[in-house]
């Protein structure tokens, strides 16, 4: 049997241990004293870049990451400054954000919602990221946006095109620069009517997830409004690689238009299959059969090769634009990396600059202050002309590009040609539009 003896040393040791234990939670949540999550206390501020580094969209994620690193360089006063000089707001002077040097951490979304949330959570909780940005899929963007709302940090969405991101799933802490399915449809419809007429029968093949559904709904509504008949809407599994069994029924369906509501690898494969089955050579109802890809990207066009020639679609931005902002960005990105940036790279670069500028204008990193600075913010010089960050839903409104696969490309990058720049007013919609109904921004959450 042992005998316990209380000595002075024991008391001191126990007291010190208890004191440290009680103080620990306070030390770990030191940021909370400033009133918001991960308030920067030193001379640096950390941003979290959450992009697909593995999985189907890894190439787009890699391009996003290049643009993020370029943006950080420019914010910190390195390189040629890119679009800092063309941006209409002049708060960014190459001295970081609010005088703090910008640092960053990266996460891999794997194009999976759960993995994306886990990496964002880790960047917020372990790395102290004050803002999360990224994503190359609407499913991922919506999932991470929800997490950021709960955690009390700003989410600057990357490439996400679903109406739901700023529709039924919108959040006060989330902001989207990229356009959406409704805007694509609104921009495309008049061009399609002018080229293909009002008497057409359209068959939709749609990726079976949030982006595909809203894209299909938008383009079907816009084309039906101009007189087209929707023959069928067929959902295809996201993991499908061979679309032959979905393409074959199109042949004898009476349709003379095939709308491919597919993105990335899905689009490359479905378009390849459609061309293999001779759809583009068919004449139906005395009209040439046509294919439409509502959302294009240069990286997708590269994957699809010659199959994209003459096919109409829409895009958020293209490197061949000749405004000063686009030229500055292409020069900066092209000189550093040796090839022009994609639309994914452009939108994330803009988002990083917009966030930094909002912090500077608000004079704080507090998400509520930053959100207020972004809401209703009008700007220019970032490659899309005059742009509005609408306060009602945190969606950017700007001109939309209607593009066509180039018939005679002059280089490996020269894959799409701009056929029309659709003005912002034509693609704008009311905040309570039925396609965006059901959501609520809620209140901004500063966390902590």
């Amino acid at each position, binding site marked *: 049997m042992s005998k316990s003896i209380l000595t002075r040393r024991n008391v001191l040791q126990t007291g010190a241990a208890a004191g440290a234990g009680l103080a620990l939670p306070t030390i770990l949540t030191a940021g909370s004293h400033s009133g918001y999550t991960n308030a920067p206390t030193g001379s640096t501020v950390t941003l979290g870049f959450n992009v697909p580094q593995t999985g189907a969209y890894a190439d787009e994620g890699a391009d996003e990451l290049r643009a993020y690193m370029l943006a950080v360089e420019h914010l910190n006063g390195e390189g040629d400054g890119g679009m800092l000089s063309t941006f209409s707001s002049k708060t960014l002077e190459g001295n970081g954000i609010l005088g703090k040097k910008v640092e960053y951490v990266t996460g891999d979304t794997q194009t999976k919602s759960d993995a994306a949330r886990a990496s964002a959570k880790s960047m917020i909780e372990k790395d102290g990221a004050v803002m999360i940005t990224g994503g190359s899929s609407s499913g991922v963007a919506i999932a991470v946006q929800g997490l950021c709302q709960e955690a009390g940090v700003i989410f600057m969405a990357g490439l996400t095109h679903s109406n739901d991101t700023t529709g039924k799933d919108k959040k006060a802490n989330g902001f989207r620069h990229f356009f959406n399915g409704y805007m694509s449809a609104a921009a495309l419809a008049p061009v399609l009517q002018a080229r293909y007429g009002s008497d057409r029968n359209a068959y939709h093949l749609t990726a079976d997830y949030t982006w595909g559904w809203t894209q299909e709904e938008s383009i079907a509504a816009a084309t039906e409004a101009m007189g087209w008949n929707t023959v*069928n809407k067929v959902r295809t599994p996201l993991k499908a690689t061979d679309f032959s069994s979905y393409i074959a029924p199109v042949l004898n369906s009476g349709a003379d238009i095939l709308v491919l509501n597919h993105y990335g690898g899905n689009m490359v494969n479905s378009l390849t299959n459609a061309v293999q089955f001779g759809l583009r050579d068919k004449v139906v109802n005395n009209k040439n059969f046509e294919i439409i890809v509502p959302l294009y990207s240069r990286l997708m066009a590269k994957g699809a090769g010659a199959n994209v020639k003459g096919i109409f679609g829409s895009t958020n931005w293209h490197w061949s634009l000749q405004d000063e902002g686009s030229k500055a960005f292409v020069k900066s990105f092209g000189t550093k990396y040796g090839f022009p940036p994609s639309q994914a790279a452009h939108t994330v670069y803009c988002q990083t600059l917009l966030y930094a500028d909002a912090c500077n204008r608000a004079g704080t990193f507090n998400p509520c202050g930053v959100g207020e600075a972004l809401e209703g913010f009008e700007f220019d010089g970032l490659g899309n002309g005059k742009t509005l960050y609408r306060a009602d839903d945190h969606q950017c409104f700007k001109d939309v590009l209607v593009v066509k696969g180039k018939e005679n490309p002059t280089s490996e990058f020269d894959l799409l040609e701009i056929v029309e720049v659709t003005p912002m007013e034509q693609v704008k919609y009311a905040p309570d539009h039925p396609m965006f109904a059901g959501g609520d921004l809620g209140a901004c959450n500063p966390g902590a």
Partner: protein
Amino acid sequence: MDAIILQILNGLDKGSAYALIALGLTLIFGTLGVVNFAHGALFVIGAFCAVTLNRIFSISFETTDPTKVDFLGNPATIKTTYLEHWFGAGPAAWMTDWSVPLAILMAIPVMLLVGVIMERGLIKHFYKRPHADQILVTFGLAIVLQEIIKFFYGANPIQTAPPDVFIGTMDLGVWLGFEANAIAYPYWRMVYFLFSTVIIGGVFAFLQFTTFGMVVRAGMADRETVGLLGIDIDKRFTITFAIAATVAGLAGVMYTPITPPTYDIGVELLVLSFVVVVVGGMGSLPGAVLAGFLLGIVESFASMNEVKNILPGIDQIIVYLMAIIVILVRPRGLMGRKGVMED
């Protein structure tokens, strides 16, 4: 009727790929008793042999053309392939056009070598280990191989065109008494089906009519007895593994014009091919081929709108549903025999 014929053709086409992969899986499982989860990666390596040959043919040197500018406004660089430089424009264009069929010549030695290295270097150490260990190690190997391919080729699909002569569709409808263009089927898919038939026939003939094949079949039935007869069965099994790898690789080479290859294309095919093996009967080569074509056709029919309107989502589960039904009705699969692979 025309829609049904089209779906049968699609099914035969998909089934060709399933059958070729399942054939290799069955050979490996039947001879070595190894559950090879890296078999899908072998299909991918084959596919990327076609991509690699195309890229080799595209290796070029650059000259500057001061009359043109690049996207940054600098003088443009003009690329000329070494192929064109050495052989002239005509032969270079022909070789590039026929790069997919020519890739077969490259894929055969590559896949044989990959097969031998995999078997000797890794798989043989797991012959006597539990199936769970084999699955883990081959699955790990598959991930490593995929990531290596992604590192060099990226994650996006890579367009690989068939020869120009096979671009377009064959009007089968006219042959079968339908109106023109009622059943138009891509030439290359017909080529793929015929190619797979030849490969499957070749493998069966090899196993049936050669001494080597006889020993392998004997080994599949009773490895121990064959060993007791003084035959070095291990050596033959290494060659069998290499042959199985080559069959999967060739299936991948010829598949590239059908679906632009990505680093992870093998995963989906592998899972389905395992189902094919189980449905066909473990260790049964004819069963694997039969089940491959059967499941391909069933999967195609399940994708028809008429079927999906009645049973939404059936296209995504039909293969597994079929597997459950077959296993319940015939626990050894369609052509599995009593006593084979049951110890």
